[in-house]
């Protein structure tokens, strides 16, 4: 088996973790751990399992409201998982138990402070030695706005677009704060009594429509320089957010053709927003695009279909997703993955329908199959998340003549 896979040939895989799994009835499965969803051990087990299979990263879902079957407001269901933990802290809690896998929590830009987010993700990067990411999302929900009482929810599509423009500003502030310390700002110069060289710290002086931030950060420059910024995008407005602000994007194509079309649309957004991707943190790098797939995996295709039907019956409705739902064997999924590769995708983010069942199928069957096909490495090939994804470490925008 080939150990090292060249970047051009290799596939990247991430896992999207959410509660007991993405299917609403997954918590009722025999191997589910529904009473442990708020324990450190539950999350540690999932993430270490993903790391043993050499997956590139895990993402952690999060929001500023209880889960709901209704995308826009709370529901009163008692037969679903309700209650969750702050995902940045879950990522930090499992960080010391891992050594190689990327950890990408979710932050809602609309109701939080970019200053806090910047230092939190920088700290996660310090704790992991360079494996942190940030998945940014917006919130148009009225109930979430009411939890803060600072603004009203958007009234129409125009105002929803503004949430994305604000998110772009938010990410800009977060990134400037990551650069606000030069890498070598800490000098510990005994002769002059200076712990830092203040000329290597920079005010970010961001002024925008929703906030202004002075800086510098209170936290030194993260090991990755710029932790990986991610977003989920279904349509042109969020594609623009990917183009302006993200290192990686999660998209939801239904087949190889739509995957190629979505990739093209994101590339067009990139060209329009920033020809040549000249901004320092993007450094000429195109957004690495991952196709989200929701997966029901079993040793036999019929078993996977039966399991899906059973879960749908328990849930009281057929499960629908923004992502393509794949039901079958790991080998069949490996075929689909191979078919879609020509669309220009960097890889796939897999949403396990049930945890730990579908994660185990991924780690024990899918990954070995992909390794056998020489598209997935059997060892981690870098110690940072940027390195794993083939993203160079960006120069600091505040350094006039960066050393090569």
């Amino acid at each position: 088996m080939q150990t090292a896979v060249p970047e051009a040939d290799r596939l990247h895989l991430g896992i999207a973790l959410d509660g007991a799994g993405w299917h609403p009835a997954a918590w009722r499965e025999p191997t589910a751990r529904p009473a442990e969803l708020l324990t450190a051990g539950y999350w540690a087990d999932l993430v270490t399992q993903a790391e043993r299979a050499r997956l590139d990263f895990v993402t952690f879902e999060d929001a500023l409201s209880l889960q709901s079957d209704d995308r826009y407001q709370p529901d009163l269901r008692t037969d679903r998982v309700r209650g969750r933990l702050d995902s940045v802290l879950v990522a930090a809690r499992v960080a010391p138990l891992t050594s190689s896998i990327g950890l990408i929590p979710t932050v809602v830009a609309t109701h939080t402070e970019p200053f806090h987010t910047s230092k939190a993700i920088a700290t996660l990067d310090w704790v992991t030695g360079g494996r942190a990411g940030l998945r940014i999302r917006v919130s148009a929900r009225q109930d979430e706005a009411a939890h803060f009482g600072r603004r009203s929810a958007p009234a129409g599509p125009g105002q929803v677009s503004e949430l994305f423009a604000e998110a772009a500003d938010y990410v800009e502030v977060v990134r400037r704060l990551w650069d606000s310390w030069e890498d070598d700002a800490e000098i510990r110069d005994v002769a002059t009594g200076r712990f830092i060289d203040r000329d290597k710290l920079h005010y970010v002086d961001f002024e925008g429509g929703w906030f202004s931030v002075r800086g510098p950060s209170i936290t030194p420059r993260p090991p990755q320089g710029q932790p990986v910024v991610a977003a989920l995008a279904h349509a042109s407005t969020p594609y623009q957010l990917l183009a302006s602000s993200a290192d990686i994007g999660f998209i939801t194509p239904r087949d190889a053709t739509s995957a190629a079309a979505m990739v093209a649309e994101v590339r067009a957004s990139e060209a329009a927003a920033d020809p040549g991707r000249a901004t320092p943190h993007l450094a000429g790098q195109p957004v690495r695009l991952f196709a989200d797939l929701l997966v029901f995996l079993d040793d036999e295709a019929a078993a996977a279909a039966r399991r899906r039907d059973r879960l749908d019956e328990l849930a009281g409705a057929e499960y629908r997703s923004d992502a393509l739902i794949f039901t079958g064997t790991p080998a069949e999924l490996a075929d689909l993955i191979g078919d879609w590769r020509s669309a220009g995708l960097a890889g796939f983010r897999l949403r396990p329908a049930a945890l730990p069942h579908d994660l185990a199928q991924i780690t024990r069957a899918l990954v070995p199959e992909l390794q056998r096909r020489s598209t997935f490495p059997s060892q981690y090939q870098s110690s940072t998340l940027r390195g794993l994804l083939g993203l160079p470490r960006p120069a600091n925008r505040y350094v006039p003549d960066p050393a090569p």
Partner: protein
Amino acid sequence: MPKPVKQVHLAAHFPGVNNTTVWSDPRAGSHIEFSSFARFARTAERAKFDFLFLAEGLRLREQHGRIYELDVVGRPDTFTILAALAAVTDRLGLAGTINSTFNEPYEVARQFATLDHLSGGRAAWNVVTSWDAFTGENFRRGGFLPQDQRYERARTFLSTTFELIDSWQGNEVAADADSGIFLRDRDAGRFEHHDSHFDIAGRFDVPRSPQGGPVIFQAGDSDEGREFAAAQADAIFSRHSTLDAGREFYADVKGRLARYGRDPDQLKILPAATFVLADTDAEAAELAHQVRLQQVSPATAIAFLEQLWNRELSAYDPDGPLPEIDPDPGENTTARGRASVRMYRDPIATAREWRAKAEAEHLSIRELIIEVTGRQSFVGSPATIAATIYDYVQADASDGYILVPHITPGGLDEFADKVVPLLQERGVFRTDYTGTTLREHLGLAPRARRARSAQTRPVKVGTAP
């Protein structure tokens, strides 16, 4: 009947961005690498300390409009580092300072509830309120909170955060796969709070954690601060580590508890304490002087002087006499982001005291600053320090101490190895944890659950938690 011997509580503060830390010492470690914090936490835990404590500052300090370079600068995010430390410890409490001005209750409530879940019940919150526009420049709703509103804001923030946390009683999650009932109460987490500070309603999304919320610390010294602590806090992070000042503070604060229906042992008084250890008292005294010289360099001495004088004094010789001129009156524009300048209530009077002291004792600027900006609390051999701590706690000068080493992360090792065993031998400090939560370590009763109800009027001071 003789008083029962009091147990001593001990905690460890990983110091932040002030001149306590002697960063120039070759043994001084990083203030940002995780390994530094992990090492410190593990030392505290093997010594069976009650908790580890972190401060917080939300804007880098400046002097004369430029970032202050002389002390440690740069620190991790409080919540994130504590969550990570929960992974490398098992019993040690995790106490962090979180600001009530530049945060929102919904977020802080879910972060503390999460930290408490992820640590098995070891979270604590040191509630602080900064009130300056300087820090506010880093935040969306930055701006300015008048000083007299500080405590009102802190009270309301604290009580609102606990309303959110208490919106889950602790029995709502059934997770019964057979019946399909995950939640027993379809309205779990319902809350509502409306006052001039917070106008919020909805459902909180984190079920009740092992401690039912973080342990509450408070660090104010003013009358209003002491009253706030007596009403709402579980422990006070105090400034009074000497015997007499400690006893006075202790009696004053404990004396306020009855008004709130609280027993004296439900509020722990824990002064911050620096220390210098050596084999003999004489060696420790000499070492302490050396440490003070390292902490107050010539440049630092001038900087401290400037903070009181509220003007530039770089022309003065640190080995020379104090300025004859008076401090600049009015708002302190020299030092920004530094809590200590708030302590200079009458700068002109303080300057005169300093001048008088320097003249009487023939002290240079640097020597004077060394004298007036805080000696080490405990200086001596392990036996001397252990005896002092024992005596002070029994004399009701405190319920224990939060130790602040000047070398981090290794400076705690000696205390853990040499002083703690002496206290254990005397039967006043645990030889092993008996409980799993921070409340148990501190001897606090379980936190009472508040009945879920819609709060539509402001919570008044004087309402027991």
